[in-house]
């Protein structure tokens, strides 16, 4: 549910079995001594670059929305959310 995935009835046994094998496999990390180790955030320890706060994109809404399953007046349509 958290992953927003619906599984078919036939799928779930296989998924559970394979996921538990994966979790068992990655559990071997627990044995590694990492007390004074800093978690790695970036392969090159780079800092983020900043750019000037200027508009760099052009308006392509209609073009981009050609890929959308359902739109109206420039909005994306989804099933009714508020009753």
């Amino acid at each position, binding site marked *: 549910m958290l992953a927003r995935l619906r599984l078919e009835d036939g799928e779930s046994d296989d998924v559970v079995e394979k996921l538990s094998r*994966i979790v068992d496999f990655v559990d071997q990390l627990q044995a590694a001594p*990492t007390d004074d*180790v800093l978690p790695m955030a970036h392969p090159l320890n780079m800092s983020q670059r900043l750019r000037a706060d200027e508009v760099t994109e052009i308006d392509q809404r209609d073009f981009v929305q050609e890929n*959308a*399953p359902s739109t109206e007046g420039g909005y994306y349509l989804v099933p009714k959310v508020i009753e």
Partner: protein
Amino acid sequence: MAGKDQALHMRTLASLTRGLAAGEFSSRELTEALLARIESHQPALNAFITITAELALLQADRADKVRAAGNAGPLNGLPIVHKDLFCTQGVLTTCGSRILDNFVSPYDAAVVERVAAAGAVMLGKTNMDEFAMGSSNETSYFGPVANPWDKKLSPGGSSGGSAAAVAARLVPAATGTDTGGSIRQPAALTGTTGIKPTYGRVSRYGMVAFASSLDQAGVITRSAEDAAMLLGVMAGHDGRDSTSVDHPVPDYGAALGKSVKGLKVGVVRQHFDEGLDDECAARVKDALKTLEDAGAELVDVDLPNIGLSVPTYYVVAPAECSSNLSRFDGVRFGHRAEDPEDLLDLYCRSRGEGFGAEVKRRVMTGTYVLSAGYYDAYYLKAQKVRQLISQDFKNAFERVDVIAGPTAPTTAFAIGEKTDDPITMYLNDIYTIGANLAGLPGISIPCGFAAGLPVGLQLVGPHFAEATLLASAHQYQQMTDWHLEAPGDFE
């Protein structure tokens, strides 16, 4: 090396560009010849998801005109194919997934843009594991790719279509991406040359994201010389990718002449432990001997934590993938389920129908390791072990210039052989994942055959050592002919 008499499809980029410059043939003739070859082998190999014949002929005619006007760029008129996770404007970009099976990209990826600006002609988009998650090309919604060396076998993955197309002499060069070995492993399994550059060397703009701290674009070719030519065009800073590095791009072609004399080559003991096929080990050792005979110095190095690289990867990569793939929700683009009951049903069914089994497994694994209560135990722990692995490489590169070893534990395996157990499949990338975790460049080159199938030698270097890797690979290819061997049905 390749002469005038050689068939066009057997020639490398370097040889073809000389032929085009000398007026032996036009880009249109070359493009037509290769398109015909692609069409005729597509049913047996399935290396392509889309063949862009019409567009290719337009680009070829333009390249011929540009050349006639004296303005030929470095790749003018040369054929190339792109892995189907690079966005291509006006052309289907599926990532091997049902969820994008109708997605026509509104823009070009930086890689696509750069090679096109250099004059290259795109012949099509290659098949791949779904969202690059796989090591055999079997997770593609568009079906598996056959290995040109034996069509019952997998070409590896995830850039399996790119590797198969280059190995089968359908095209001299292809782009790929490598998150855990997805360029180098298929290159090894198909007898081609594949380089994954340093993280940040090539822009990821327009490359559909899988695991953003690991993904990097590279190339698959038939020689290190060609890889240098193509990478030189692709590499360089791009403001549209915040992780792209502003670091000068050396002239890779000019660096190829550097001899391996005095090159310190690290050999990692752990790479030759159990799990490596004996025949593959023997071929890799022969290659090390060849380098040593040419004046390289072999040095034993230790990477004490490298054994944890696969489990580390299978926490970090799924975590990043679960976050990246949340954009596929059936709302703005891609597959949408029919008649959803409500918004939640729309999300869950669009994703449930759109993603294949391996992608779902990784999204769920990632969601699990990032969830409250498990975050410290899995994700944070894995990022700490990643630091240790990275430090091991740093220590090793204080003593050696490159690290050499096998690319993959075995030669190509049968389609269907490893699909039942995800762990067995994951272990294919045991020698390649370390470079991704540490952001290092790596190259795989053919170094012989085991039972008639190609074996790959991997060289890994420090950050931004692409020139050293390409030069060492080129020097090795001057001393050996393994990279010239073509699969029997495709000469």
